[in-house]
């Protein structure tokens, strides 16, 4: 106790860890609470400031406040709603689009259909391809040039070709989502097989396990974390595919809605579309993480 009191009298100059610990016990409750939640509090505060600053720019709060100082040039601090919109305008637009006119639901359904089909196709092709590439060396040599070439290309560049091949309907969006999402899945599945513990495989095969048995009992369980990490990447890539595919040539869907709203300077609607996509992505990633925790309970903590 006296130590701590000393420490305080000397200011914070003494850096002995014992004293610092005592100091912490002596802190007033409010300060201790703040330090424990510093990350959340600071984060919330900065986000609030950001939102208020944004709202103020649109409503001209800052222009009014600084007019005495800056004179007429303060007008430049008030921006038009078509330029930046504002948090309240966006919330109002979201409410209107979801619950009053309901105009966003058909777009959501249309985009969702393309997304599910594209991602499903990517999973159905990418994971077996990666597993086979990891297991059969010769197969890997055969497909690797294609995979690494495709990986180095921004896959979106294929979009004009895809439009030439399958038109601008559902097929186009499914294909571009597939192209974007398939690579992380295949590459991660490949890496998963490669990093399987070779001792386990050797033991199992010397006890006469078949290839199928090896795959089912050793390789698949140990590759689950890789596959789910790949899936998480694929979810994000697929979202890019939805938007780009619909921006480039489509009449319906969230991406098309964003595109049309942008072309008409309805900035609030653009933000609603962007936030909807973000929400969908966050929810999907959260689901994958839940599955990850669920599937991995048998694993001994490292």
């Amino acid at each position, binding site marked *: 106790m006296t130590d701590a009191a000393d420490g305080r009298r000397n200011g914070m100059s003494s850096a002995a860890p014992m004293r610092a610990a005592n100091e912490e016990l002596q802190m007033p409750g409010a300060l201790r609470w703040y330090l424990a939640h510093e990350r959340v509090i600071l984060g919330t505060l900065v986000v609030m400031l950001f939102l208020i600053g944004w709202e103020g720019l649109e409503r001209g709060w800052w222009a009014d406040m600084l007019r005495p100082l800056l004179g007429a040039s303060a007008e430049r601090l008030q921006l038009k709603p078509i330029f930046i919109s504002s948090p309240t305008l966006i919330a109002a637009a979201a409410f209107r689009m979801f619950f009053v006119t309901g105009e966003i639901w058909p777009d959501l359904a249309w985009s969702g259909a393309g997304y599910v089909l594209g991602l499903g196709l990517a999973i159905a092709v990418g994971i077996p391809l990666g597993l086979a590439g990891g297991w059969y060396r010769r197969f890997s040599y055969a497909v690797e040039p294609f995979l690494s070439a495709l990986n180095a290309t921004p896959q979106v560049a294929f979009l004009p070709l895809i439009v030439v091949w399958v038109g601008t309907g559902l097929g186009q969006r499914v294909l571009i989502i597939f192209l974007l999402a398939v690579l992380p899945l295949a590459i991660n599945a490949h890496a998963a097989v490669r990093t399987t513990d070779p001792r386990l495989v050797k033991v199992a095969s010397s006890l006469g396990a078949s290839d199928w048995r090896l795959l089912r009992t050793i390789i698949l369980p140990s590759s689950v974390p890789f596959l789910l990490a790949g899936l998480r990447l694929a979810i994000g890539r697929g979202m890019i595919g939805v938007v780009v595919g619909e921006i480039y040539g489509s009449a319906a869907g969230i991406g098309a809605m964003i595109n049309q709203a942008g072309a008409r300077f309805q*900035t609030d609607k653009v933000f609603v579309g962007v936030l909807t996509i973000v929400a969908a992505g966050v929810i999907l990633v959260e689901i994958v993480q839940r599955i990850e925790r669920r599937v991995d309970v048998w694993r001994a903590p490292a």
Partner: protein
Amino acid sequence: MISPFVDTLNAVPRVTLLPLIIIWFGIGIWSKVVVVFLGAVIPILINTQSGVKTSEARFIRVARSFSASRLKIFSSIILPGTVPFIFTGLKYGAGRALLGVVVGELYASTAGLGHMIADAGNTFQTDIVFFGVLVFMATGLIVVALLDAVERRFENWRPALSRS
């Protein structure tokens, strides 16, 4: 303090911001610069951050007990330890940047390779489209190879890991 913004921006597929960026910056070169920047900055930032976070605590403690200055600790422990992370971020960011160029130019542009591809696609000149795609592919491969070379240059002080 910046992590809420970084996390949010990371969750946003940056290409969805394209219509907004066009409104803010027009369809000239600057809208592409902003799209490429937004695409590339996040992976670089996140990787560098985790690189600094995982720097060896024991080294820092030793350096501090030999009364190394903060600058010295940063330049001789944290920075060298972060190099692999920075390059992972850079490689990832390079891919994202290329994607940004293509999408930005497909969406609204008057010039550029992406514009050329879109134009050729619209007029069914499939050979030109393929050529454009190949140029992008080559660019991607060259950028990654260059980054690998620079990384090797900065990493050759590190003792080679013995293969287990």
